[in-house]
């Protein structure tokens, strides 16, 4: 693999002579300000990769301030499997001095740093370690399209440069650019393409060599390109959800905006409510009346929903609650990633209130997890949390297009009359009969937050409360028995098992690959079903000397993160340890490997 990375190609090149090097992947970081349209460049590249055979993964930061502020977009494109957005960049585009200074450290030694020479003065010390390429990006853009180029056009000029450098398919890019501006003024498309071609035509030949991606394996079927929030929203629609309610909060808002815009096409409705308590209540009301409904939020908003979620547990009403996690507590770090709401999702209710918690691992999985959540909610009449996070929410991935005709489901309730209906019989899961259904024996149920008998009528006897508490718990135990035991990545026996959940799947697997390539005995296990946990994990753990739970949250009072604590409570196994962090950034592969080395007493025993 080392022969085909960019820094090695740069190192082998004999300074200046234009040549074509074949690489199998590239990590490109764009650093500028939020109004420079940096996200758009990344979006075009991701889409392009999706339409080609390449794999793609992106990573972006959004400034917490409303306008302006530094912003980056990193895209990793490759011909092989891409698991994470990449630890270090091969190429950095720095639009300003601050972009240059803040991001030079994210570039691989020997990597290429392209600076807008209209704004950036290179640092001679850094010029020794990185290949600097000054290009007057701003003035060339102005030359090409006029105006001030203060905010517009530079991104397309840079896209042109990238297309030239990496020998990208120009007609495909042109098509993407035109599609992006369809419906807009014809002249906008023309200006955009002019800027793009100015970049593409800019003679960089004597400055940088060109790269070409190695042939990727042909993929069967076409790919779709979207971010995690979009995948969640569309997944809910595919699942048959036709009603939702929420209150805006970053990074959840995109999901609600999408559903508000899309649901009416399907005859559905999404309501923006006065607050999160109203939203969860409205969603529960709609679920009560028929189809499983959705609500969602991030951090503080989820806290507001907890009383109502407890009611849904008690009254056994299905519900999907999406939590796009961000740094907490309180307003915390609204645009940073953290996995610190696991405890809240699993335990965040008064009383014994078992609920289901699922955690999607990547963008594609957001789509399928949404469907799974709806089906579990519907089958078990229980609230189901989807724990996504800021990183999955905003990153763009390409994945095989789902077979929508097969995947889409109709969950319209059946309202034909029934002879009798006993919603809370001690014997277990019931097929819900909803309002509007005639019950021929004339006995109608009440959905109640009070402890109740089998028809939902209040009853507080010790025996009843014991019976009903057990009933609510046993539903989840039944679900646990149905869940697949997750597969170990790497050999099922060895020294270290890295355990993760949610968006850390990519970096953890890449860490396993790298460790194994170096001869270390490391495997990994990713848990998608957080509550209930699937059966059989103890057998997986038995195959390893160390179980390291990698998560983006605090080590807690006793040295384990939140999943780590749950696993220790469940398995009482002292070899389960935590590998946590709270810097609000996604895990780098190297970071995981170094931490494992220092955390695990025996080190990484060779295979």
């Amino acid at each position, binding site marked *: 693999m080392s022969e085909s990375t960019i820094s090695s190609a740069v190192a082998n090149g004999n300074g200046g002579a234009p040549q074509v090097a074949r690489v199998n992947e590239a990590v490109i970081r764009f650093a500028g300000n939020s109004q420079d349209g940096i996200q758009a460049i990344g979006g075009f590249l991701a*889409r392009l990769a*999706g*339409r080609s055979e390449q794999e793609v993964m992106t990573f972006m930061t959004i400034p917490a301030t409303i306008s302006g502020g530094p912003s980056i977009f990193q895209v990793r494109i490759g011909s092989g499997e891409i698991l994470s957005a990449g630890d270090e960049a091969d190429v950095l585009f720095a639009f300003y001095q601050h972009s240059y200074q803040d991001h030079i450290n994210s570039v691989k030694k020997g990597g290429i740093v392209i600076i807008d020479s209209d704004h950036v003065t290179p640092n001679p010390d850094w010029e020794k370690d990185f290949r600097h390429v000054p290009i007057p990006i701003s003035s060339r853009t102005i030359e090409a399209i006029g105006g001030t180029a203060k905010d517009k056009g530079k991104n397309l000029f840079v896209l042109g440069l990238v297309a030239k450098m990496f020998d990208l398919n120009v007609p495909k890019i042109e098509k993407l650019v035109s599609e992006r501006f369809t419906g807009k003024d014809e002249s906008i498309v023309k200006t955009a393409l002019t800027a793009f071609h100015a970049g593409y035509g800019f003679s960089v030949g004597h400055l940088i060599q060109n790269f070409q991606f190695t042939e990727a394996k042909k993929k069967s079927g076409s790919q*779709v390109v979207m971010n995690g929030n979009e995948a969640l929203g*569309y997944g809910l*629609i595919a699942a048959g959800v*036709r009603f939702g*309610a929420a209150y805006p909060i970053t990074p959840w808002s995109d999901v609600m905006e999408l559903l508000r815009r*899309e649901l*009416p*096409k*399907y*005859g559905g*409705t999404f*309501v923006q409510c*006065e*607050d999160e*308590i*109203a939203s969860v*209540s*409205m*969603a529960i*009301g*709609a*679920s*009560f*009346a*028929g189809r499983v*409904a959705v609500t969602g939020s991030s951090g503080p908003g989820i806290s507001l929903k907890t009383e*109502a979620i407890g*009611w849904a547990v008690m009254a056994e009403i299905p519900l999907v609650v999406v939590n796009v996690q961000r740094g907490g507590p309180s307003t915390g770090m609204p645009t940073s990633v953290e996995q610190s709401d696991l405890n809240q999702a699993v335990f965040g209710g008064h009383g014994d209130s078992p609920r289901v918690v699922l955690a*999607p691992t990547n963008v594609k999985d957001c*789509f*399928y*997890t949404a469907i799974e959540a709806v*089906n579990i909610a519907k089958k078990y009449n229980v609230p189901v949390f989807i724990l996504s996070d800021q990183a999955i929410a905003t990153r763009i991935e390409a994945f095989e*297009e789902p077979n929508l*005709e097969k995947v889409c489901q*109709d*969950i*319209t309730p*059946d*309202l*034909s*009359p029934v002879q009798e209906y006993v919603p809370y019989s001690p014997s277990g899961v019931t097929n819900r009969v*909803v*309002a*509007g259904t*005639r019950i*021929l024996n*004339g006995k*109608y*149920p*009440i959905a*109640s*937050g*009070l402890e109740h008998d089998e028809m939902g009528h*209040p009853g507080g006897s010790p025996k009843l409360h014991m019976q009903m508490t057990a009933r609510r718990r046993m539903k989840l135990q039944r679900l646990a028995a149905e*869940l697949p035991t997750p597969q170990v990545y790497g050999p099922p026996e060895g020294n270290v098992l890295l355990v993760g959940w949610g968006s850390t799947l990519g970096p953890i697997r890449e860490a396993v690959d790298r460790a194994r390539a170096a001869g270390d005995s490391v495997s990994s296990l*990713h848990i998608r079903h957080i509550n209930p946990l699937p059966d059989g994990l103890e057998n997986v753990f038995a195959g390893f000397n160390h179980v390291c739970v990698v998560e983006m949250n605090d080590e807690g009072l006793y040295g384990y993160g939140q999943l780590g604590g749950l696993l220790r409570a469940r398995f009482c196994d002292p070899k389960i340890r935590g590998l946590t962090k709270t810097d609000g950034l996604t895990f780098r592969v190297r970071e995981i490997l170094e931490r494992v080395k220092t955390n695990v007493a025996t080190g990484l025993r060779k295979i």
Partner: protein
Amino acid sequence: MSEQTIGIPPRGNIVTPVTTPATALPDGERKGLTKKEIAADHPTWCPGCGDFAVLALYFKLIEKRKLWHEKITTVSGIGCSSRFPYFVQGHGAHYLHGRSLPFASGISLTRPDLHLFVFGGDGDAFSIGGNHVNHTARKNIKMTYVIMDNWVYGLTKKQTSPTSPLGFKSKTDIWGAVDQPINPMKQLISAGATFIARTTATNPNHLLQMMEAAMDHDGFSVIECLSECVEFYEGAFDASNPRKGGKFEPVPADHDVTDEVAAYKLANASFPGYFGIFYKNNRPTKNALEAKVNATMQEKVQGKKDWEILQASFSRLK
């Protein structure tokens, strides 16, 4: 691994459209419900509690208007008054303290085929649920809401309520209430409710009349019904009850119910004030407005199956 989802066997019966429920007998051949068939649990209220009258007249309304069991959905919050749904034979929910309106909104916006009634107390409506009243009113979501106002917290045994008059001695104001009470009528008018009426549990005919008018209103219809808590605020409403030497003063015959300012003036009268419909307008409901949005959006995807609509979106994400 993503595809390892929990599948549930497709049910053959999941495609019945929501708006046309099947029934065993055509409605025309069904006999109206008797009081016995409508009553469920025996009410747990204290003997003499005003809430009994509200329940009795709800039964009467169901009988008189020939509502079917399955079409009635009774929702409430938490409080003595909110025990209501347990006493009614029909689909219902006893939801959270103060949150009955958003819960009911979820039903209203997805199930236009149901008659939706919400019951609750003054604390439920104007304290913990205050903001929900404002927003349900502003959005004009179709349902009927009966606020059983007893000027006190009954269920939790005599604390000050947002409608308790100044000086009312409760367990949380042993020296007498000091906080300015809410005027329910004014609150509802300024919130934008489209049907606002005031009645009392001691005047059954009037209460039934108000319930019928509220039910027939296409929008968010609210009734404040004075309903005495004999346990913790005995005699609170005597001044409105002719049998106790008080006066029941109907809204003047020449009152223009579409005149917001006139309604506000009526609401300004000191207790016992007026009884009847204070305000009514026919502003479109959120139900209708959302249906209109949907009709416009669906025009563009006419004839397409759901998966084909989604496919079109995915095709743009390539």
